[in-house]
């Protein structure tokens, strides 16, 4: 990873590569466990105790307990795996996208109905900073 990595220049976007996949391995495997209804029930019963069964870092566990999606992604979580957590919570991709972007669900829904987040101003970090 060098400063010239073009992926790092895309604002608000994380590349899920092999390195992140290794970092997030146990976090993502915990998410996979929630595909079984009996595990979802156990998780809901005592989230902290359930998370202790997985050899992930304490920071990863805290991010799960706080439902800090951006932090989970930063710590190696992938959105399709994290989807198992928010599906267990009864939330949709759109609900969680609103949280990740710091909007209310209504604001986010309105942005999408108006054609989504525009590409102009969102291609690169420099363009992002300079947008009007």
């Amino acid at each position, binding site marked *: 990873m060098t400063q010239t990595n073009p992926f790092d220049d895309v604002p*608000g976007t994380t590349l899920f590569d092999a390195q992140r996949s290794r970092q997030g391995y146990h976090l993502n*495997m915990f998410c996979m466990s929630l595909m079984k209804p009996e595990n979802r029930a156990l998780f809901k019963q005592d989230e902290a105790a359930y998370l202790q069964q997985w050899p992930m870092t304490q920071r990863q566990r805290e991010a799960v307990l706080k439902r800090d999606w951006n932090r989970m992604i930063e710590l190696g979580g992938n959105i399709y795996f994290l989807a198992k957590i928010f599906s267990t919570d009864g939330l949709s*991709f759109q609900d969680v996208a609103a949280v990740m972007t710091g909007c209310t669900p209504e604001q986010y829904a309105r942005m*999408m109905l108006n054609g989504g*987040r525009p590409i102009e101003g969102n291609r690169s970090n420099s363009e992002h900073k300079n947008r009007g």
Partner: protein
Amino acid sequence: MAKIVASVNCSHVPAIGAAWDLGKTDTPYWAPVFKGFDFSKKWIADLRPDVIILVYNDHASAFSVELIPTFALGCAGEFKPADEGWGPRPVPVVQGHPVLAAHIAQSVILDEFDLTIVNKMDVDHGLTVPLTLMFGQPKEWPCKIIPLAVNVVQYPPPTGNRCYNLGKAIKKAVDSFPEDLRVVIFGTGGMSHQLQGQRAGLINAAFDERLLDNLSKNPQEVAGIPFIEYFREAGSEGIEMVMWLIARGALETAVREVYRFYHVPASNTALGHLILENDSFSRT
């Protein structure tokens, strides 16, 4: 002889499946989405394919971070709908075509595409949502379906060019299958969308329209789009569009665009849909 005669490209947004399953197809939000497939439903019912090769990506359902095949061909007799965290979708079990699938696997591997053979796999919304859009909800899906799962979750996914060429190898494989079968290939996913981080909700209609325009006439140009361009211009999940190139590669050079539909938004996504038929194909 077996023959791939047409391709169907479409997005596979999970919320579309949920809208269907919860009976929300007539709501103001979803009605335009489902209406966009009225033509397509009739088209495919008239075409009556024997087999669909369905190119899609698994979303951490059958494949976790334990095993990440770049291309995985479903060779089983059946594939059950996956439990993605809210229970399996109430859709029919997918019936495969193990004989054709094994033939395709053998042919493309000898053609140097080293895909993974899968004999047990649950299929998630990536595969079932396009079927819902095209067929509604029959008791059984009306034809055999061969799943082809492509890794677009962990970087690097296969390049557009690799996908396009795999499509060509699949065409060659199907062409050499002795049984008379009418085959349609689906390339699903896309179009521009981003589900993660502060840039979630990104839509780039200009990028999408250019791809829709070029897929029929200039597929080589689409095949040349590098990963970074999808990532930056079409959102981190826009890379799913490389799967459209597998379907395009499996058609002949000369194709006709039969139908196109584009709609924003479907949840976080720009929904794109395209039907192409080989120019040489005539139903009579």
